[in-house]
């Protein structure tokens, strides 16, 4: 192929759009304890955490000497296939450590990197949440995670299978496995299913396992939602509770 002269088209474009990011709050100043905690989280839901961009919130450990170990801790997270993108909180010592670790610094709460703030135009219009549609049965040992949106499953979820979503989970068949809605903290997320036999359901981290279910809900079309911190499993009203 012959080389063409460069066109005037831009090779890149800077846009101010930000996604919601997962915040990992560091609560212990011990790298050792943090490392163990990360490892055990990874084992619980490897698919969820793999390549997940996270912000490290260092507020709770800001006064400690942990900043000295920040580059090491960032390396450890990367080794576990997480993607630390920046820190939030902490003073100049922390900012220097972040620079050394090759990650950004986010100003408290705003979730826009301070150093980039001037480039960021007005917040972009919200995009429609991406949904994931699964047509095949989710089998034992499989895990499906809808990052950033809802999960819609047109078949059943087997015992020993796990489905997760940042948003709602809709299952048009039987739920025999585990369903985790709002895994990044959305407490308005719900689980809907046509035939309820779950092993476990959670919304935003509040969970219930099968031995805690009301017998009457088994085999029913139900929705699972949080009601002031309580996890409720109720018949789907539109279906008259079958």
């Amino acid at each position, binding site marked *: 192929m012959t080389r063409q002269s460069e066109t005037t088209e831009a090779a890149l474009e800077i846009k101010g759009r930000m996604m919601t990011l997962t915040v990992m709050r560091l609560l212990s100043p011990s790298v050792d304890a943090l490392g163990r905690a990360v490892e055990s989280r990874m084992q619980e839901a490897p698919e969820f955490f793999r390549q997940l961009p996270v912000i490290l919130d260092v507020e709770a450990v800001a006064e400690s000497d942990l900043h000295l170990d920040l580059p090491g801790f960032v390396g450890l997270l990367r080794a576990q296939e997480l993607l630390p993108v920046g820190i939030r909180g902490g003073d100049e010592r922390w900012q220097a450590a972040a620079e050394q670790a090759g990650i950004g610094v986010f100003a408290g709460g705003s979730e826009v990197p301070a150093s980039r703030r001037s480039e960021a135009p007005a917040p972009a219009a919200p995009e429609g949440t991406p949904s994931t549609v699964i047509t*095949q*049965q*989710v*089998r*034992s*040992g*499989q895990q499906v995670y809808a990052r950033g949106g809802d999960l819609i499953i047109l*078949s*059943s979820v*087997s*015992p*020993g*299978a796990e489905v997760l979503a940042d948003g709602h989970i809709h299952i048009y*068949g*039987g739920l*025999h496995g585990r369903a985790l809605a709002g895994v990044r903290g959305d407490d308005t997320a719900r689980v809907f299913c046509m035939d309820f036999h779950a092993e476990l359901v959670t919304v935003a981290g509040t969970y219930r396992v099968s031995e805690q279910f009301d017998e009457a809900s088994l085999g029913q079309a139900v929705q699972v939602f949080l009601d002031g911190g309580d996890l409720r499993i109720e018949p789907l009203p539109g279906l008259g509770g079958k």
Partner: protein
Amino acid sequence: MAKTVVVTSGKGGVGKTTTSAALATGLARQGHRTAVVDFDVGLRNLDLVMGCERRVVYDFVNVINGDATLNQALIRDKRVEGLYVLAASQTRDKDALTQDGVERVMTELSEQFDYVICDSPAGIERGALMAMYHADDAIVVTNPEVSSVRDSDRVLGILASKSRRAEQGDEPVREHLLLTRYSPERVNKGEMLSLEDVGEILAIDLLGVIPESQAVLNASNAGVPVILESESDAGQAYDDAVARFLGEQRPLRFTDVPRKGFFGRLFGS
């Protein structure tokens, strides 16, 4: 081009080898040229069930390594025309089945036969993955118990993602459930899952139900595929399953508790 069928399960000892032997024999008896291949490296016993263990000279691994041609290694069945066995090797080396090697042998088999039946080892590791990789159809052998159903479900998930058909984006592997060692009495007592329970979880097409039967043990001790024992319940159930596999409609048998006579009712449980 042959149709390649894997007989698989995840869990061990559920009846894969029994089923592979019966299916291959049943298909050959209907006039289809059929080869049945033992993928259980190190634990071969298909040749025992087929009654040809004394005639094994070369095996699957010999063919892969080029020590023998496929035709030298294929053992012709003496009872049924058009039926051949390819034995597994006794080698301990689990890596003896290489991806390329298996592919070559499967291609060659598929040129010569109408059906190639692959008897999978237990588990979901290398050997089982090799056995299922080339499949067009999968017969998932399941016993009516929770652990077997769970493993079958796992295998179905793997078939849907790791088979050649899945990898190449072809039409998915056709999945069939074969429920074996079914005992209606024990189902009724709640000691075993029912046909409906298993069907609900696995949600795939039901090929047949094989009853728990002494005939299976007797036949395999004698080196006779149980489908040739046409008087036996298990033999008849396998015959039904083969007919359904070939597209025939047949009602299920041996799924109800046999009606007891007067003395049965008097002394039965």
